[in-house]
């Protein structure tokens, strides 16, 4: 095995792989050191070290309210999407009804329909329903976008649940609700939690639908960043980008760890 790694085509493969890792990670990570620059403009390598752009981000009400709004929307989205997504996974994995296969595709379709279409559609409907520009509207919109990730994660853990355990519980006299609460739910909990965390990230990073459904009075961090990116290129944007990345990465790693806990793997 060790010999085969010296073969030219293997070396080439490893080199290409290393290059791809670099291509995947490096361009994004370049923002992190740049956000700590002491100078007024973005330079690489950064000049000096300073946290002033983070200070500016925290003290500037536009950025700080954006941060708070994003966190609120992402949290509420995670809760709602987890509840609905878990129900959907139970219904479509365990349920038997005509058109079930199509329904599973429907649940995943928010991932595939071009997001700009979803955005203008929701804008046009939500304005009429008086939901545009409100936190409720954005949470509902993000929930539709985030649900697929919950469904996929819960469905995966649901399929690993040994149904004999449930049958055993039922034969010992537990009703269906009790069986679900005591047997099924603990078994799928890692999947549910991972799904919720993915839903949080989906909302936290979402920008296109948010551009249409927010207003100047109620803006999320990515929307504020979108406005600023096209206007001034101030290192604060790099600090915001780093903050967005840090939150996403933390939650992603958390989700991966949580999912590892799945008993049936």
């Amino acid at each position: 095995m060790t010999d085969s790694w010296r073969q030219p085509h293997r070396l080439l493969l490893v080199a290409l792989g290393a290059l791809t890792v670099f291509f995947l990670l490096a361009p994004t990570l370049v923002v992190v050191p740049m956000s700590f620059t002491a100078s007024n403009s973005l330079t690489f390598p950064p000049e000096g070290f300073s946290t002033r752009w983070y200070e500016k981000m925290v003290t500037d009400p536009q950025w700080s309210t954006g941060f708070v709004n994003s966190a609120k929307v992402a949290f509420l989205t995670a809760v709602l999407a987890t509840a609905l997504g878990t129900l959907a996974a139970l219904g479509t994995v365990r349920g038997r009804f005509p058109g079930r296969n199509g329904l599973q595709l429907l649940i995943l379709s928010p991932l595939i329909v071009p997001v700009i279409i979803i955005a203008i559609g929701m804008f046009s409907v939500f304005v009429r329903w008086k939901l545009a520009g409100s936190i409720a509207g954005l949470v509902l919109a993000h929930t539709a976008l985030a649900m697929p990730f919950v469904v996929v994660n819960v469905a995966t853990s649901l399929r690993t649940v040994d149904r004999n355990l449930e049958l055993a519980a039922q034969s010992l006299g537990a009703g269906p609700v009790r069986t679900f609460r005591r047997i099924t739910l603990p078994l799928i909990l890692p999947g549910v939690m991972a799904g919720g965390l993915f839903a949080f990230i989906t909302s936290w990073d979402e920008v296109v639908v948010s551009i249409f459904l927010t207003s100047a009075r109620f803006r999320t961090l990515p929307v504020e960043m979108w406005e600023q990116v096209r206007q001034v290129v101030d290192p604060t944007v790099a600090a915001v980008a780093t903050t967005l990345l840090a939150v996403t990465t933390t939650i992603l790693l958390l989700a991966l760890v949580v999912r590892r806990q799945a008993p049936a793997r």
Partner: protein
Amino acid sequence: MTSWRRLSPLIAAGVSLVAACGGGASLSPTVGPPESTAPESAAPTMAPMADICTNPPKAAGTTLTFASYGGAYQEAQRKGWLEPYAALTGVTFQESEDSSNATIKAQVEAGQVTWDIVDVGNDFGLDAQADILEPIDYTMVPKDEILDGFAGTYRVADITYGVVLGYNTEKTAGQVPEGWADFFDTTKFPGKRGFWDYSAGGIFEFALLADGVAPKDLYPLDLPRATTKLDTIKNDIVFWGSGAESQDLLGKGEVAMAMIWNGRAYSAKNIDKKPVAIQWNQQIVTADYFVVPKGTPNKDAAMAFIGWASCKENNAAPSKYIPYGPTNKLATADPSKVAELSVSNINDTTAYFDDTWVVENAQLLEDAYQEWKTR
């Protein structure tokens, strides 16, 4: 493992679901009334115009929502108009910084008008928008004192500005571009050129001026001639999407010259301390306008404010903070800014938009623009 078969069930499910929802009318969301419903305003009592200027009707308890374009611009409007007016009348102002024609249209069509006074660009507020705007109440607004052509049925200009040729003096190495012909001459003046990415913002007009068309002969625009002229520098053009971006591009020298709003060039020079200058020749003098969305519950209070802000005593107040000029012929701008105002630099090369033509032919302009741009 479940197997999702082919795609057809998706479409079938989608169709049947839509049918089942009956268009979704019954699925109305469970959300309370909109937060923004303004309180029933006590309609201000009518006052003769002279009174409006010095002693506008008291309206404590009324909340007016003022939407403009944010930044230093809206700050100047706030300090010049909103704060003094609030102090005089007791009106409370709420502000939006994202004025957009789309939002006005959406609010009116949805029957949910939350903006009372909106500052819009020169491409809005004409007869084409009769359905979504309240006519300006000229019993309260001094129409005769407003610059000719700047007071329409549905809009009255609040601020004048110039769309000008701005240049980075370092990039032009001491040479002064005399007008748009030099802008299009990349041999004499190397470097990139900035244009606003908008069909009705002036790009065609400037191409024609550069090509030798006289300001008074601009309309109807000769679009093929304009695009042919634009083709000569197409690869050197950088499009900007916002005033701040144009200020940044020109200040940093990423473009040597740019079509830019005079206030932005002023800020690049005086606030950012960048080597930026304005060539006033062949500027287009235009204005931003106040409009009132149709169906606002605060129509009369909004008109009273517009009347007050249009008076010669008050109209020039924002020019203390930003080099945008008054629209009232009798108003005097702040002395420190007079030289920097578009209206102070009018000469026989100055051009004006034909807003009516532009709005009526918006589709034509847009098609020609996109056709040229993506070519």
